[in-house]
């Protein structure tokens, strides 16, 4: 057991966890940041996608203790808790989610894309988003939502 300190959504969080515990379990079960989801545990589904220093990562395969050294962790709750992020608005405009379970991961992955590439082509969107599974089959609406957000050209703050 070690007491770890995390910088998440620009706040300090502390948790006492066993070495080797995944960052996903720390976020969800220790800290209550349950917007980040568990789907596979082996970096295959993307439901657990978060940002570490602005890069999209799969929390399920990260050891918590490796990310307790001041790295900036951003979860869906920190993207814009009020739902005002341009991607969140575009997601509603496109009526993208069905069950919704994959959507935190989808939005976090999309945010990282637009951060790097504000006007992605369809192929770029598809290639970038393919790590994130959606069993409900909302891919075309996700693609549409990313295009809406991109066309709105709103600056994407992190």
């Amino acid at each position, binding site marked *: 057991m070690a007491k770890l300190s995390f910088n998440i959504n620009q706040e300090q969080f502390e948790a006492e966890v066993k070495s080797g*515990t995944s960052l996903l379990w720390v976020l969800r079960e220790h800290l209550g940041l349950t917007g980040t989801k568990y789907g596979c545990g082996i970096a295959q589904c993307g439901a657990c996608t978060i940002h570490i220093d602005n890069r999209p990562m799969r929390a399920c395969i990260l050891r918590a203790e490796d990310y307790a050294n001041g790295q900036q962790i951003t979860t869906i709750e920190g993207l814009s808790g009020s739902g005002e992020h341009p991607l969140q608005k575009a*997601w509603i405009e496109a009526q993208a989610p069905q069950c*919704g379970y994959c959507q935190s991961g989808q*939005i976090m992955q999309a945010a990282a894309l637009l951060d790097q590439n504000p006007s992605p082509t369809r192929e770029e969107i598809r290639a970038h988003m393919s790590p994130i599974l959606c069993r409900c089959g909302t891919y*075309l*609406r996700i693609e549409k939502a990313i295009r809406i957000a991109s066309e709105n050209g709103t600056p994407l703050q992190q």
Partner: protein
Amino acid sequence: METNTYTASRRNFLKATGGFTLYIGVSGILPGLISCEDPKKLEAALKKEPLTAWVKLSSDGEMVIFNPAAEMGQGSMTALPAIFAEEMDADWSKVHVEFSPQVTEVYGSPGWAPGSKLMFTVGSRTTNSYFDVMRRAGAEARYILLYSASKTWGVPMGELTTEPGYVVHPESDRRLGYGEIASGLQIPETLPENIPLKKSSEYRLVGQDLQRTELPEKVNGRAQFAIDIRLPDMVYGVLERGDLHGAAPELQNEAEILGMDGVLKIIRLDYAIGLIATSLEGALEAKKNLRISWGTSAASGFDSGTAYREYEKIAAGNARGEVIVESGDVDKAFNSAARRITADFKNDYIYHAQMEPLNAVVQVAADGGSAEVWVGSQQGPDSKLGVPELLGIPPENVTINLQYLGGGFGRRSMNDFVSECVLLAQEVAPKPVKLIWTREDDVRYGAFRPMSLQRVTAGVDSGGKLTGFAHCVVGDGGNLVASGIRNDHYRIPNQLAEWREARHGIRLKHWRSVGHGPNKFAIEHMLDLVATDLKKDPVALRRELMADAPRALATLDKVAEMADWDTPAPEGRARGVAFVEHGSLGSGICEISLDRDTGKITVHHFWCAVDPGIAVQPDNIKAQIEGGIIMGMSSVLSEQITIRDGRVQQSNYSDYRLLRMQDAPESIETVILGSDQHPEGVGETGTPLVAGAIANAFLKLTGKSLRHLPFTPERVLEVLNA
């Protein structure tokens, strides 16, 4: 119709009206309205449920409408309240939606048996089964508001009308907001039996695209699934169930496991070893270290790859199975047929793969006399999920807190995961237990769509008419393999459809569209084999067959127009058509191309025309068709569970591959052919279109016939090079 006045007091009111009873419980400014068939049961329920009502109206006019169905992405949180609000004439901007309590007497919709009620979100029945329930409840709410306003103003009810959120007296130009009325609600002595409902031409919410009410919380991480529940003092449960369904475990290292950090308890089930620990990571660590020797089971020795040989023998045998359709005389039709075509179709096991793995949170009281459950369930028996029976306590002592479902697809209509969690929670009561299935658990101990074989024979007479159609499906699970075997919309005079049983001890369950996927694949591809043989256009052939089914034909004509069927596909591509009835009627056309080196099929476009009757939420219908087609493509192109010596070979998304965004079609276009017929389900209409449409496009493109799902690149190459 019998009228049965029950009680009418100052504080509550009960009256049977045409099989429904309306209850108004006046508590200060919050009147609540509910419908119920059995007043006694209702009264008992009302005593025990903290909130038992269809709507809560507050004095500022804001209201909560209760949704009685599970929300798994199909849009029940919007469609059902919209139907209620339509008849109540509510102001939609003031409507909030919450799940209703799980009390079937109050919130059920008509069940399978006449007069019965059910809270079960299965078979695409959300809108279909609740349409009348919600309409009537909403109209009753409006009636009471009208009554109360007429008393306040001292004018006859007949002079009053409503506008969204208001009762209006046009003559004196007076208006009362619903919230104002609620503050001093006056209650009628009796309710008319048949309160008039709106005509569809008067609808202003039904048929409009309302934004889905729960989406704001589904984009900011706040939407709560059962897996997100955290309670004080909560502990974690996991089970090791192995990969051989039903095998009995024997734990070899109990002492070692009990000595592990945070492990509280080991629980032995017939088919699994359960663990409870203080943390999830602790529980998972201990699970990894379990040493279990497994017994055999009914599935031992079973091999899904070689089982088709046995299926072929069963199909060839003389013993008829359970006859599902028999019309005319197929043997006679075949004997006099000019041409006769027989083909076998095969379908491997597939898995639900809902994105939220199964889980539940259960707290059993210290004295064992009550329990509380947090769960994403498609609900069921009825509607406390079997928990009262398990604990031997009355249903009213069990509270079910329904959460959003991270996908259902039929898997969450079996509450095995709830029962497991109850058993664990009982052991550590009153601590709440969160049970999590890992993805590996979810795959290996899945309940699959059964493998099946369809032997289909078509007979065509000398005039080129399809006169006989015989369809024998072989597989485990009755309706799980037999649904969708009927051809009610095709005029074929002589038909025989039967199911022949095979059993393997593998766990099975309804999977989105159930047997329709495999059976429509067989039927629709056979029609194209016939059309090819007759050198007939596949759409033209279906048009002839649909001569007596104008609604089905309309979907076919529409989709042919949408896809520009009569214009050839671009070079290197081909189109294929299919028709399906599953609740709604739908016709679909896809356009594909093929990489002849790798065997990979690419679907470029999918067009669909669907007739759902009244289209309650049109954009959501389109979303369901899109999702259904993508899930269909995923299953048709790559999904496959294989069993070797009874053991499930796959374990996670790494070896059970789902379609990803890069393989989604460029477009899926849906046109809704609405009507004023009772609304039908749309959640399972898209999925079973896919296999037939792709196989038919492939036939057109290559002259070869794909008959074994999934159409993996290896299988495609095999067929191509045969």
